[in-house]
């Protein structure tokens, strides 16, 4: 455990640097924006970025102060038992208070990473993966892998990942209801929802749509052409009132991850389609349409 004190010192220094940096962070926000989105921020979005920046910076400060306190205490820890106690207290305080006053999961998970990183060495040192039979090596390897996924934020190596995120659901019934998705428009103007059942196994179309709309608008036409080609390929199934996942097993097919709506495509043969669009519609809770916005469009 001799290494724990230098580790605590290093993390304390990192926490203090984070705290000091937070006072200058606003100047770097446009650079961070460019790094994330790949494009320069437009002047009209600056106010929004400043607002976001204030929240972001406050959270960095909260976490770095909490982190500084934690690692100051860690300087006085003498053995593994005391360290484990500190981890438990740190997580409890975090769960009860810090997670409540901060919003972004990334900072919370980084704190967890700093706090629990020594566990990786402690566990490795304890088992050393020697003098063990085959089964125990596999078991300890699996447990070690689980620990790595527990500690490293957002680690994703299929078929392993670090767990579905914690979330809250607060619904304001005064806010409009958003419906976003791909729609096919026939030559006579009638439109129909392009269900995710068509692209199955691709399930989360909206996530992909938003990714290309926000980050690669230059590739939107290609994306819509891809959807178009899938529709043409699968139409023989769709016109029979089935989705492609039901070709072999019919109604007994393996369900889609997000059950799909029933849409009748029999009167929407590919030859009758004029365009394919990604549309955002807004409704009131009484189901009245407020407005709709075309986010992307392509002639068929």
């Amino acid at each position, binding site marked *: 455990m001799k290494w724990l004190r230098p580790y605590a010192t290093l993390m304390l220094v990192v926490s203090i640097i984070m705290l000091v940096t937070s006072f200058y962070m606003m100047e770097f926000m446009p650079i961070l924006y460019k790094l994330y989105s790949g494009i320069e921020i437009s002047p009209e979005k600056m106010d929004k970025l400043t607002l976001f920046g204030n929240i972001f910076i406050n959270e960095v400060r909260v976490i770095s102060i909490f982190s500084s306190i934690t690692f100051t205490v860690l300087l006085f820890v003498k053995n593994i038992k005391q360290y484990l106690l500190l981890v438990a207290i740190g997580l409890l305080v975090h*769960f009860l208070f810090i*997670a*409540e006053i901060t919003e972004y*999961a990334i900072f*919370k*998970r980084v704190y*967890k990473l700093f706090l629990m990183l020594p566990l990786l060495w402690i566990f490795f040192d304890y088992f050393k993966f020697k003098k063990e039979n*085959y*089964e*125990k090596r*596999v078991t300890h390897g*699996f447990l070690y892998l*689980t620990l790595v996924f*527990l500690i490293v934020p957002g680690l*994703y*190596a*299929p*078929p*392993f*990942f*670090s767990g*579905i*995120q*914690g979330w*809250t*659901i607060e*619904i304001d019934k005064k806010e409009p209801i958003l*419906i976003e*998705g791909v729609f096919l428009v026939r030559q006579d103007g009638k439109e129909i929802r392009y*269900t*995710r*059942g068509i692209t*199955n*196994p*691709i*399930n*989360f179309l909206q*996530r*992909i749509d938003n*990714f290309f709309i926000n*980050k690669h608008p230059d*590739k939107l036409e*290609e*994306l819509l052409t*891809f959807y178009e080609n*899938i529709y043409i390929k699968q139409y023989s199934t769709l016109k029979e009132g089935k989705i*492609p*996942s*039901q070709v*072999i*097993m019919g109604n007994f*097919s*393996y369900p889609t*991850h*997000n059950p799909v*709506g029933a*849409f009748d495509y029999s009167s929407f043969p590919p030859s009758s389609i004029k365009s394919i669009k990604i549309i955002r519609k807004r*409704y009131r*809770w009484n*189901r009245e349409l407020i407005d709709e916005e075309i986010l992307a469009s392509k002639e068929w």
Partner: protein
Amino acid sequence: MNILETFNKKLYEPAPASFIGWSRIVILLILLWKFLSRDYSIFGLMPEELAIAYAGNTFNPLSAYVALGFKPIVDLFTFHWIHAFLPFPTVNILYYLQLFLEAMLVVTLFFGGGYKKLNYLIIYIVGMYLLGFIFSMGADIDEIFIPMQMVLLLFIFRGKETYILSSNQQSPLNYSRENGWFFSMVLLIFIGYYFLCGFTKIIDISLWDWGRCEVANLVELNKIKIAVGDDRAPFFMRDLIVGNSWMDIPGTALIYLEHLMIPLLFFKRRYIAFAWFIYFSFHLTSLSLNLFFTGIFLSWLVFLPVHRFYAKIIILWDGDCSFCKKSVDVAKKLDVFNRFIVINSNEKGKYEEELKGWDGDIDKGLWAKGVDSHENLVGFDGFRRMVWVMPLLWIILPILYIPLIPTIGRKVYAWIAKNRYMFGCNSKGCRI
């Protein structure tokens, strides 16, 4: 005994070989069903330039959900790194690859892993490659990760298989430490999956956030979205949830707590049925939010102790109790496959070998012991074990495992056992 010693002891707690065969069947059938219901050839229509929507790019990095789901990492684990050497596949290549995988799943279902269990490795590699198109987008994560981890475990497992068309297999009722290790590893896969999900619930959100999960309102929102034409399916349970906000906090807390406490299942395995019931309800309820975790929902079936459906059991009953005799006579009639070996307690001297393990206290009620198994059950649990081989009573079997039913059942059974002579007695020595 410290926790590590207990862990090591539990790790090798003997389990029947039937578990290996049954879990193999469940997992391979889930995968076969899934692949027969999916068309991965559509990725051949996708221009390679569009294959950039990786999980690490599409999710908000501030949520840190799959923040490290970038191309190099995901491609490494899904074998998509091969595209650095080979061109992106065409529709035909993917179609035949999927067909090959389906054929492998069928062959393996009947004949097992084959030489060095390589069939499982092939299924894993080809399966991960095809699923990789979806995994890269951060989808199907909670749907199929457990089955794929189990395929890998079946490859790693060095013991013999069961329920295959080959003479090179072990008897399903063979209990061994090696089979017990396999059972423990499967349990650890489930525990790892759920516990990691639970741990994020104390890191990403606070205790107070546990009370901010407006499920009933979200379900109502789902209903309205369907009404205005969103891409969601109707589901009858929504009507049961809408307006019942009182369920939000206890429901959420129950699931999060179970996620966090699930490691205890490794040590207290008799609660597997309890955990199964809670997750069954949870995954079914998630359909109200238009989410269905079919793969994981069905993966729980691996814990069904199938050997109980056919393994013979010894039933010891109180020969002085006429009520017990009547009950046993009814049970014998329902034992259509002749699985019971019924022993009257007055004749126990004749069955010393069979009665090994019995504590000698008939006042606890009837005693049921699986032949060739490590099961040794008394009272309500003994009765429940009997139901496994009585097909006409299978309908009540799941009910006997619903939380609280066993607790109440044990108390009621204990009362009946204590007062059994009130319902009739065959002996002069009975107190009435």
